[in-house]
């Protein structure tokens, strides 16, 4: 099928008139029609006729022109319902668009749907949604991950060519790992947050997710860059990620932090990453074991900072100017608002919030020292395989521990590329992450692309698609 092809190949075929954008769109809707009753990745589907009309008039100004994509339902899309997977915004129609969406529209990419997630980004399993959980296309009894489970499951199910996710504590990387796809958690400030529904403002990042590392590079090149509407967006020049992608990785230095491979890590994941490590060595990279002793404090720092910021961000939902009442927040979201309110409240502020901000400085120092000697860290994305439904929800500690390996990166602001690196004995996908220095997305793409050129994990598809 066409949606198995890379963005580069699709762009060539579209320009050569071998295929039309409308063909791609029809394939997307047919796939959704066939599989999404089971997978449940879509919250709002854009009207097919409207989309095909857009596809017929598309001008080929960028490699993304005419290509169908989805967004996690956390981005404002003018005229298209945006819910953040919460009943509070069940009937919210944004009067303006997020910068990321505007840039993709200008590049001619075609939005087909707004996808499922944990409400407000609060979760690692897409069970904390008011629109029923998204199922993992690799095993329907298991979670598709979260918070961006919808876009990841949709890409694995070939509903679209790429997706836009968001990562505050692992929300783009965790579902990528559990759905056998790739995703880039960008450097904080690399992509504008304007018009993205805020979870935790100092941690939120907007990024691409797709079948291939290479596809993510094409998408990031379009969405990255300074935005006058987001004062925290960076003026750091945007590289040509597509060019950097093809750089040699010979002699690159990878750090293998031993703390990431302790008791908390599932044995199958440990084994898969050990093999990936060998693969990198055979590709000419140098891999050395290092120590990052702060890791064990990452979850505590994150679960003080993120709930604190979310308790403030979510205070705007009062049902006056838009949306419904605060009684509609889910239990998980109420838990986070209450935890954050506690950490910020008089008498506890110094012991929790301020302490976590100090710890944040220590994390920045420890990783900076390490990344002055290495080009990237090689680490697992999650400590566990995709869980059965109910295993994470309503167990606050298990829920937090799912984020063990992903949250340090957000605390520091570093970029991290997640990509497939194997399967467990039950056929469930396993992912790894490559964490780099600030604004080193191009180097990470090169490492990930070299790995995908010499392995074929990313080509494997859920059995459901073969029938």
């Amino acid at each position, binding site marked *: 099928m066409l949606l198995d092809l890379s963005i580069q190949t699709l762009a060539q075929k579209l320009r050569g008139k071998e295929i039309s954008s409308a063909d791609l769109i029809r394939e997307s809707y047919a796939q959704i029609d066939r599989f999404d009753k089971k997978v449940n990745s879509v919250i709002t589907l854009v009207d097919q006729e409207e989309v095909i009309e857009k596809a017929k008039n598309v001008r080929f100004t960028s490699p993304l022109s005419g290509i169908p994509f989805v967004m996690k339902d956390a981005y404002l899309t003018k005229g298209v319902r945006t819910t953040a997977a919460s009943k509070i915004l069940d009937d919210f129609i944004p009067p*303006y668009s997020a910068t990321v969406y505007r840039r993709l529209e200008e590049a001619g990419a075609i939005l087909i749907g707004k996808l499922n997630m944990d409400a407000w980004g609060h979760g690692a399993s897409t069970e904390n949604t008011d629109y029923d959980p998204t199922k993992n296309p690799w095993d329907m009894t298991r979670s598709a991950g979260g918070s961006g489970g919808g876009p990841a499951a949709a890409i694995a199910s070939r509903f679209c060519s790429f997706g836009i996710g968001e990562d505050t504590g692992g929300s783009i990387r965790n579902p990528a790992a559990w759905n056998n796809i790739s995703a880039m958690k960008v450097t904080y400030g690399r992509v504008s947050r304007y018009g993205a529904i805020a979870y935790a403002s100092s941690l939120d990042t907007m990024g691409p997710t797709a079948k291939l590392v290479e596809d993510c590079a094409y998408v990031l090149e379009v969405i990255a860059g300074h935005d006058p509407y987001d004062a925290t967006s960076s003026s750091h020049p945007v590289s040509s990620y597509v060019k950097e992608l093809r750089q040699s990785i010979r002699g690159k230095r990878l750090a293998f932090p031993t703390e990431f491979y302790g008791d908390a890590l599932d044995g199958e994941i440990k084994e898969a990453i050990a093999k990936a490590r060998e693969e990198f060595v055979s590709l000419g990279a140098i891999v050395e074991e290092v120590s990052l002793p702060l890791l064990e404090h990452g979850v505590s720092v994150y679960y003080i900072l993120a709930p604190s910021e979310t308790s403030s961000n979510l205070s705007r939902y009062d049902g006056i100017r838009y949306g419904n*009442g*605060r009684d509609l927040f889910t*239990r998980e979201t*109420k838990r986070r608002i209450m935890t954050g309110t506690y950490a910020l409240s008089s008498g506890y502020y110094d012991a929790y919030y301020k302490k976590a901000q100090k710890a944040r400085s220590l994390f920045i120092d420890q990783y900076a020292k390490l990344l002055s000697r290495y080009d990237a860290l090689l680490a697992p994305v999650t400590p566990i395989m995709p869980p059965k439904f109910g295993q994470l929800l309503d167990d606050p500690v298990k829920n937090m521990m799912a984020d063990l390996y992903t949250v340090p990166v957000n605390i520091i*602001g570093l970029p991290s590329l997640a990509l497939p690196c194997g399967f467990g004995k039950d056929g469930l996908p396993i992912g790894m992450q490559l964490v780099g220095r600030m604004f080193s997305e191009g180097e990470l793409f090169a490492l990930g692309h070299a790995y995908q050129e010499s392995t074929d994990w990313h080509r494997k598809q859920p059995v459901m698609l073969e029938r």
Partner: protein
Amino acid sequence: MKGKAPKSTKTTPVLTKKDIDHLARLASLPLTAKQSDELTEQVGVTVHYVSQLQALPTEGVTETSQVTGLENVFREDEIDPARMLTQAEALSNAKRTYNGFFIVDRVLEEK
């Protein structure tokens, strides 16, 4: 690290139902009695877990509140028409409006 919360000890704060009801008022969250009970336990577990951070020495460390490295990002104090909503757009998602205004509940009470 084990994937389990440490056992509660007397030195760690344990939240009471009264604390939760106070926090709910601060956060403007309407809670049912059942939700309040559940949250007393669950927020307590979360707070207890993150209290492990107290073991990390941070004396003399400066706090980090943001990681951009940017300071004092200013812009001209000018209206950008491209960003403006019309009155109709601004009101388009409100449940209760009157003569082009949002309706809000009374916050002051008569004596």
